[in-house]
Structure formats: structure tokens, C-alpha cells
């Protein structure tokens, strides 16, 4: 073969290759653009105005996050940590119009909040997104994240699904102190997710929302996490219907068999290890004990060898209607035991915080979760959340974490009682008020001289 021909042949081959590569890239590019166009009209920027409590005082604060319109009624999905507890909401549509919003419902445990656009007369509702199926995702699949990272609105980043069943520890907490993520695994992606992306959609190439971007990783890059849309669908439906999510509680926490297989001889018995049983919980009352192995719940086999299998088990229990009598099968020392347990309402993990301005501190009610976290013997009283530096409580040596159990010898059981006694004192402009607090196990008597400057 003459050299010239050879060169021509090789050249032609390269050209063909180039064309082929270019052709597929074109397709991917087009797919991205198409997906973008489907989602963008529904993309919103969320600016909540929230009360924040810090150092014993309440202040108004504004933040920024992302969200998307997901139905024809103008409901917007975002993160609880973006819009939860918002007093006012300013929502900017993708056409840059600003629209007021209202908070419909929130769920800290999945970090989801639902808002509704309050369009003015004559304004047209933008198109809403299509929701995908997060169970269908596969690792390596292209996805893109849309939102307002660092308040840079209508930004788009692109990447792949890095993992679809990432388990973020069950002790993962929001800045407001609430636990989150017990009921779902997370989609991990390398599409850039930065602060401000929170609440924005994670979208597949069909332009369907498959997740709600929720967090990045400190000190890392290209590691972001999104809440699977299938969980979001369930939660959003409940929030729209009732404003809250009902969950059942048995008082059990679990541990995967992973490293305990030998101990529990678990090759022969699949199940999930019960690691703790809350005092005075439905499970404790029927005699379920730490170290038991849960085999079945309401007739469904339960098994967790690895941690990422735990959320589903927690979710099954939580999803049970409150007050149901459920059958629980337990393995204990070679025997299989059957229990009937009545589920109870799980309750909020954190109660609202309240400022006691003239006393110089903020406090919150003691929920079961808080009592558990601080290993308190009971839920009585009110917990001091913050003390204003140099304020009157500060000078009386009240500390955050103190539990107020009485005011002037009147027992205080909850935040409402403290609020009403505070109001009566405040109206009377009392010179001094005696608080009885528990600091860890021991009592303190603290005299506060209220300040009525404001």
C-alpha cells in the first residue's frame, strides 16, 4: 500500500472517530439542556425570615436556599433547615418575580418543608417539575443539581450518582439540634452542592427530580447528599394533607449484625440486633430487652447486616399508624418469642424555643428526645437554651442546660407553664424571682432580678 493511501486511511479513521465522539457528546449536551429546560421554570429561590435564638436572645434572621414547584397548586418543596419555622417567606421564581410564600408543613426528621406560593391576582403559576423514581437510580448515572449556591441563583452543576444508599449516622443533627436522616439513606453525588443549594432539585437526564439536595461535606469537595425523592413524595403528601407527619414509636434502637455475627450466631438467625430499649416505652412494657434480635415486624421479616439497612427498619416502625397493635417476633437465646406491642406517637424531637426577655434567657420544652440526649431521668421542667451574656440570668449564674423545675416554689412542668408564670411576673414587674433548677443531678436556687429596660 502506498504511503499516501495509508495516511489517508488513518486520517479518515480519526475523522470518523472524532465525528462519533462529537456525536455522542452532542447528545449528552442536548440531554442536559433539555432536562434543564424542563426543570428551570419550576426552580425557585427561597428567602425565609426566621426567629433565631442565640446567646439567650431572639433575633430575626434571613437565609437563602433553593426549592422547586412540584404541583399545579403551587406547592414548593425545600429543606426544613432552609424554611422550617419561617415567619415570612420571599420566593423568587425563575423569571425573577418575587412572590410571598406560606409554610404549609415541616418535617425535621427527613429535613423536608412544604411551602405554597401566594400568587397575586392575574399571575400565572409556573410549570411544575416532574418527579422521578429514586429507587431506579444507579451509581454512575448522570445527574445535575440546580439551585442557588451561595445565593447565586439559577446555578446548575453536573455530575453522577456516586452512591445511592449512603447511611449518614442516626445521630446526625441539624444546626437547630434536631436529629435527621434516621428514615432514609442518601443519594451521594459529585455534582457540586454548596450552601444555598439546599432544597434544590437533583435531576436526571430526563428532567425528572430524583432527589432534594440537602448537604455537602465540610472539608471535602465533590461530595454532596440528596434526599431520595420517593421519601420526599410520601412526606410532602402528608404535610400538604395534615401539616405534619405522624410517626409511631416503640422505644427501640437497632444495631446491624455486621460485627456481632459471631456473638449472636447470626449466620443461622438473620434479623437486627436491638441495642437499646427506652425506659417506659411500649417495647419495654411488654418485656423486649436490649440484646434481643428482631426477626419480624407486623409479619414482615426484618434484617440488617449493615448499617445502611437500618433506615428501612426505623421507617417501617414509624410508618405504622399510631396506636396500632403490632406483632413483633424476637429471637432470644435460641428461642423465638412473639410480642404484641401498641405503638405510640413519636412526638417532636425538639420543642419550640422561647425568649424570656426580662429574665435574660431563652428556654425550650423537654421532649422525650431531649431527655434522652441529656440522659435526664424524666421530661419535667424546661431547659435553658441560652443565657444572654451579662444579662440578669447570667449574673444569677444560670447556665444553658440548666433545667428549671420551679419558679417561686411552683413546680414547672412544661414551657406553657413557665410562659404563663413569666407573663404574670412580667405584668407585676417583680423585683426578684426565685428559680429552682436542676444542674445535672443537683439542685440550685437562683435569684434573678428582672430587667424591664425594654
Amino acid at each position, binding site marked *: 500500500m502506498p504511503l499516501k493511501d495509508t495516511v489517508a486511511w488513518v486520517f479518515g479513521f480519526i475523522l470518523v472517530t472524532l465525528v462519533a465522539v462529537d456525536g455522542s457528546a452532542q447528545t449528552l449536551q442536548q440531554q442536559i439542556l433539555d432536562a434543564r429546560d424542563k426543570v428551570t421554570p419550576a426552580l425557585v429561590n427561597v428567602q425565609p425570615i426566621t426567629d433565631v435564638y442565640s446567646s439567650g436572645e431572639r433575633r430575626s434572621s434571613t437565609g437563602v436556599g433553593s426549592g422547586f414547584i412540584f404541583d399545579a397548586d403551587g406547592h414548593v418543596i425545600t429543606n426544613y433547615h432552609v424554611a422550617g419555622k419561617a415567619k415570612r417567606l420571599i420566593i423568587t421564581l425563575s423569571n425573577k418575580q418575587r412572590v410571598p410564600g406560606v409554610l404549609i408543613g415541616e418535617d425535621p426528621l427527613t429535613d423536608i418543608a412544604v411551602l405554597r406560593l401566594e400568587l397575586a391576582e392575574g399571575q400565572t403559576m409556573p410549570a411544575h417539575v416532574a418527579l422521578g423514581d429514586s429507587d431506579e437510580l444507579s451509581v454512575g448515572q448522570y445527574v445535575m443539581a440546580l439551585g442557588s449556591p451561595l445565593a447565586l441563583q439559577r446555578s446548575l452543576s453536573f455530575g453522577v450518582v456516586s452512591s445511592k444508599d449512603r447511611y449518614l*449516622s442516626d445521630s446526625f443533627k441539624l444546626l437547630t439540634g434536631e436529629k435527621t436522616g434516621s428514615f432514609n439513606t442518601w443519594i451521594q453525588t459529585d455534582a457540586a452542592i454548596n450552601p444555598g443549594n439546599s432544597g434544590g432539585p437533583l435531576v436526571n437526564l430526563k428532567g425528572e427530580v430524583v432527589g432534594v439536595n440537602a448537604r455537602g461535606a465540610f472539608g471535602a469537595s465533590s461530595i454532596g447528599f440528596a434526599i431520595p425523592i420517593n421519601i420526599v413524595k410520601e412526606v410532602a403528601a402528608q404535610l400538604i394533607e395534615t401539616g405534619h407527619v405522624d410517626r409511631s414509636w416503640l422505644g427501640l*434502637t437497632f*444495631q446491624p449484625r*455486621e*460485627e456481632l455475627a459471631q456473638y449472636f450466631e447470626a449466620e443461622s438467625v438473620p434479623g437486627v440486633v436491638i441495642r437499646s430499649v427506652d*425506659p417506659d416505652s411500649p417495647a419495654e412494657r411488654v418485656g423486649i430487652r436490649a440484646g434481643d434480635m428482631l426477626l419480624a415486624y407486623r409479619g414482615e421479616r426484618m434484617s440488617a447486616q449493615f448499617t445502611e439497612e437500618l433506615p428501612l427498619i426505623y421507617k417501617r416502625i414509624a410508618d405504622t399508624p399510631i396506636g396500632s397493635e403490632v406483632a413483633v417476633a424476637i429471637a432470644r437465646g435460641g428461642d423465638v418469642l412473639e410480642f404484641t406491642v401498641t405503638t405510640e406517637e413519636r412526638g417532636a424531637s425538639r420543642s419550640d424555643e422561647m425568649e424570656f426577655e426580662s429574665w435574660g434567657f431563652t428556654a425550650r420544652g423537654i421532649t422525650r428526645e431531649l431527655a434522652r440526649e441529656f*440522659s435526664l431521668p424524666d421530661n419535667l421542667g424546661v431547659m435553658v437554651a441560652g443565657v444572654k451574656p451579662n444579662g440578669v440570668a447570667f449574673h444569677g449564674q444560670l447556665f444553658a442546660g440548666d433545667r428549671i423545675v420551679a419558679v417561686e416554689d411552683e413546680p414547672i412542668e412544661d414551657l406553657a407553664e413557665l410562659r404563663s408564670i413569666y407573663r404574670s411576673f412580667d405584668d407585676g414587674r417583680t423585683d426578684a424571682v426565685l428559680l429552682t433548677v436542676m444542674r445535672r443531678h443537683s*439542685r440550685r436556687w437562683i*435569684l434573678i432580678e428582672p430587667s424591664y429596660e425594654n
Partner: protein
Amino acid sequence: MRTEFVCVALSALVATVGVARVAPDETAEKLRSIESHYSKSMVQVRYRQQVSRSTAEPPAEEELTTTGVVVTVDGLVMVSAIIYEPFNQVPHGVGIRFPGSVNRALAKIPEAHVRFMDGSEYPATLLGRDPDADVAFFQIDEGAEDVTFVPVVFEAGTDVTVGEEVVVVSLLGEPLGPAIAVELSRVQAMTMRPLSGFMVATGASDPVGSLVVSREGTVLGYLDALTVPVPDTRSQNPLAFLSIMRDLPKGVGRGFARPARDFVDAGVRIPDAEPVRRGWLGVEMQPLSRELASHMRLPVDSGILLRYVYRNSPAEGAGLEVGDVLFELEGEPVDVNRDEDLGTFAEKLLRAGAGASLEIGYLRKGAPATTTVQLAPAPRSAREAETVKVEELDLTVRELTYDYRAARFLEPERQGVVVVQPPVAVSSNRNRVAPGDLLVRFDDEPIADLASFRAVLANVRARQPDEVVLFVERGRESFFFAVKPDWD
């Protein structure tokens, strides 16, 4: 010309030096004579003791030194009772004894040496503590049969007054010493509480155990404590707590001396064979401020509010309850308004000693009542607790103590041992054992206390399994934890 000038200058210098030598300084003479006299009686005591530097680490034996004074011709050596002070039992209030950041986990001292300034050194045995003088004694026991020691003499009637000139005789420790250091000082103040005595200025780096003498060399006092600017060692104020936990400067330029008369009989009394545990009431206390007293409309204007009563404590036995106000002890008013006043009360209880019966007047819901409480020896606290280290598991545990029970709201019948150092996780297990967790099962056996832990451990060591499972509790949480022992 230039050479001449230098010569003149040199001769002037020589002349000056010559003058100083011709007219000796009387004070210098006296200090020198004091230095020379007490270099025969002041000694460095080196001893080994279990101490822990932080709560995170298990106690370890370390060599420590303290200053001693010889008090008899046959070699009885007196040291401050600081060597017995568990860190958290130091009486609080101004003038606390303060051993630095060391926590003496066990008072036991298996081995000690007494070193003199001339370089001679003798092995010594700890005899015990004299509870009245609140000092401890070592006896030089070997190799000194033919030696006649020069004792320090403490006499009554040697009271001092404010402003009086005194000499502080202290021991200069390693690496510059040991050597005797003399220092001219003055009495700055007389103190009443928590102990009566006086304050002197001193720059000694470790003044505890030093003598305060007159210009003529008569012993006036015994430096027993440092002032540390912390009003209440059990204060819940985190700042105060922090300043205790840090390495404090050992001296703050001022020392607390107890008068010589307190030590007249020291060494004559036979010290206790075993160190006496100080009297323990078993309560946590809050001073009753005047403002609180008046706001609560109490018939007293000082006293102590009981913040907590330990289970199975003498206070509980005497029927005292949280919220009671102690206003009288042995017929005397409890004169406590501020944190720093608590020292006096605490000191009274400590000095009364275990076994003493005390009459206490208290108010319950404003109404007066009395009770008699029999003080007990203080139980071991978490800081003093006995520990067991398991090298193969990289695990250290300690006994369950009364203060841990209280802090964790544990009932008296709850059992277990407390993790001091957790084993290293070999995998991604998220349920990690942490210091402070309560170990309740070990290798599938229930653990009641250190004894049962040791028994199960012996069993495990004999079997050498490739995996051991721990079950621990943390508040309302509990979990299992598998460890792979290293049997090699």
C-alpha cells in the same frame, strides 16, 4: 594615659569590694546562719505514688518529691498532709493546699527516700498521718543507726504580728538543688478561715513544707498551702473549673503558714498506721446568700442549702433532704453566705473525722429541726477509683463510684464498671465505646464490679477467643461492641 585611667578605675573597684568585706552585713550573717542550721534538718523526700494527670488517662506510678523537716533525733520526718490529698477532696476556700495538676489516685506510697543537703540519702517508710496536726510522717529506717539527726523544734508562744520581719526557709528542688533557700519576708496578714494562720510573701517555687522562722532562727510557722485564686473547687462555674484543671503556677507569691504552736506535739503522737479518711457528710452544698434568705423569708440570714444528698450517705441516714437549709453545727451557727465561706464548714467536717457524731440544726420548708449525723469515711470518688487495665483489649475500666452514680442518675443497685480508656475500633462500627460509658456485660457475662470483671477477664484470658463482645450503656442508650483481642 589610657593605661593609667584603667588602673585607677580598677583600684577603685578593689577598694569598694574591700569595704564590703570589712563591714559585714548583719542580716546576711543571720540568713547564712539560718541556712546552715536548717540545711541539717530540711530534707527532700522522694516517693512513688499512683497519680493521674488527667481523667482520660489511667493513673500511673510516678516519682514525686516534697519538702520534709526532721523532727526527732532518730529520723522522723514531717511532711505536709498534701501527700494524701486526693485532688477533689482539697478543702475549698482561700488557702487550699494545692498539689498542682496531680491527682493522687491512691495514698499508698510503696517506696520513699529521704535526701539531705550533704548528699546522704536513706530509705524511709510512710508511717501515716497525724490527723490533729494534719501532717504526715516518714521514718528513716535503715543505714542511719549511728546518725544523730538535728530536729526542728516547734514551740508555743511564738505568735507573729502583721508586718513582722520573718525568714522563709524553703527547699530549692531539681534541677538546681536540692539546696536550702532563705528569703527575707514579712507577715502580710493574719487569717481566720478556713484555718487560722498567717500569710507571708514568698517567691519559693514550691513553698509547701517550708518553714517560717524569725531572724534569730526560731520557728514561727509551717507553710502548708498556697493561695490559689479559686473560691470553690466544686464550683459548677466552668471557668473556675478550667483554672483548676490547668497547670496552675505553683506559687503566686504568697504562702499560707500555720503557726508553730499547731506542731508542738507533732511526732510525739503516734501517727495512724493507716491514713485516716476525713469525715464525709455526703451532700452537695449551696451557700445561702442574704438575698436568698430574705427572698425565701427564712428565719436565718446565713446557712447552707442542700443541693444534693448522696444515696446511702450519712446525710441521707440522718434524714436530710435536698432543699434543707443547714444553719447550725454543734450548736454554732453555720456562717455561710458565699462560696468561699463553705471552706470553713467543709473543714469542720473534714477535721471531725469519720465516725464523729455531729448535731445539725436545719430548716425544712422554713421550720427548724435538728438531727444527729454520724460522719463516714469519704467513699472513693471517680478520680480516686481503682482501675484495671487490659492490655490485650487496649481497655481500661474503673470501679463504679458514688459520684458517677449521681451524675448519671443511676440507682444504687445498678452495677457495672466504667470505661476509662475505650478499646480502639477495628472497623467502621459507628457504635463506639467512649470514656465514661458503663460496661455492664463482658464476654456475655454480667459485670457487677471490678471483682467480677477481673474474674470474667481471667476466664477470657484462659480461653483466648478471637473476639470479645462488650455491652455498654450510655444514659438511655446501650449497644454492643466487638473487640478483637491481641493475645501475642
